[in-house]
């Protein structure tokens, strides 16, 4: 039996991970799927004061309060920023890191550094026009090749991302290098992908295992069985 902490991505909440969590629990594992402040079920807490540090502490709070040890830390998409910050603080408690089509930041980088100049300007323009200067509006999910059957419903659940979570740069000590295992899962079924560079960087690195999923960015919706198998397989 293993313990998993799964961190969702930007603009959404943890509810998308509930079916995966319940399958892992049915297989005997313990699973925590915290919701980041200002998003999903916690969107009523949205404010311009929320930044990446807030989200790192959201997950740190679960680890401390539940006294979790020897767990698998999973991040999807923007969740890669969050789990990297968490891993730096709790390296000795983490059995394995799993990045699911996720940002893989170095010390001193922000999500906007990966999104690039054009994407950043687009996001900032959206925040300026529609988000009161503090909320980045959700993208159209077609850019992530979310299956059309689920796209409209999922789109309706999205809410603005606090801009500070995308701007604040991570400060890392390098402690996460001590974590024994790490897996990167890249989704090949949409293009362009801002996660391709991260995958290219690690795919020949012996410290990393990698997997490719031939689907869009939201793999737990697109390929729920394979997503479950990959996560269950690292236990």
């Amino acid at each position, binding site marked *: 039996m293993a313990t998993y902490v799964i961190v969702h991505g930007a603009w959404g909440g943890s509810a998308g991970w509930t079916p995966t969590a319940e399958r892992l629990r049915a297989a005997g594992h313990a699973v925590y799927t915290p919701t980041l402040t200002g998003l*999903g079920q916690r969107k009523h807490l949205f404010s311009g004061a929320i930044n990446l540090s807030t989200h790192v502490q959201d997950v740190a709070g679960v680890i401390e309060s539940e006294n979790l040890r020897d767990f698998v830390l999973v991040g999807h998409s923007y969740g890669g920023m969050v789990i990297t910050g968490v891993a730096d603080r709790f390296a000795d408690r983490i059995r394995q890191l799993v990045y699911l089509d996720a940002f893989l930041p170095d010390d001193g980088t922000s999500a906007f550094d990966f999104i690039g100049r054009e994407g950043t300007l687009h996001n900032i323009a959206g925040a300026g026009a529609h988000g009161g200067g503090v909320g980045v509006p959700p993208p159209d999910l077609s850019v992530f090749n979310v299956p059309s059957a689920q796209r409209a419903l999922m789109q309706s*659940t999205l809410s603005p991302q606090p801009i500070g979570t995308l701007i604040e740069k991570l400060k890392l000590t390098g402690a996460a290098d001590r974590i024994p295992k790490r897996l990167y899962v890249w989704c090949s079924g949409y293009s362009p992908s801002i996660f391709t560079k991260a995958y290219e960087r690690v795919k020949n690195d012996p410290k990393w295992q990698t997997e490719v999923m031939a689907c869009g960015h939201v793999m737990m919706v697109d390929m729920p069985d394979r997503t479950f198998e990959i996560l269950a397989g690292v236990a």
Partner: protein
Amino acid sequence: MATFVLVHGAWAGGAAWAEVADGLRARGHRVFAPTLTGIGERRHLLSGTINLSTHVQDIVGLIDSEGLSDVILAGHSYGGMVVTGVADRVPHRIRKLAYVDAIVPENGQSMLDVFGPERAVRIMADAAANGGTAIPCPSPSYFRLPPELEAQAGYAGTFQPLATFVERLRLRNGPWAGPRAYIVAGTYAGSIFLTRFWPRFSADPSWQCFEIPCSHTIQVEAPERLTEVLAELA
């Protein structure tokens, strides 16, 4: 198989339900044990803007986002304020309310109204010494919790956002008339739960009533028995 949402009390967090959540899941139920904003694992969000409405919305947000229905909604202690508010907001999503040594407010009451003026004044003095917006946790002896269980309960060093105790609960639909249960901590002698709520509800056949012989923090002191009782409500 039922869906449980477990709401913790003041100065605590969702982690206090860990054993009960595991026990219910092992019996095949779905369980959510969220932490209210500003407390427990979410203490880094503590601010003077958090009120009872925030905590009600914390749970409504969970129910909406997860698409939950037919929920058995349990509240411990102050969590009784929260679940009463939630049931008023989304009554069609709730199968049954379970009050676990919990406050059962009347329409228009705040936590401080339930406590009465003497205690309200003492709480104000405690808050005044803490920036005027947060209430420090009473000493562990207040809950009569065995010291070895204090860490699991999570009370130590936490602050309750003041406005969660001050804001009055306005029920749009009036008192909850659906199925309900009261689970009292039988040896928390002198508590308002035993002296005020239990005599009323245990004599009222519209309530399912259970007495568990332990002190206030039942989910930590007697998790196996509480799991059995909650499973019986399903």
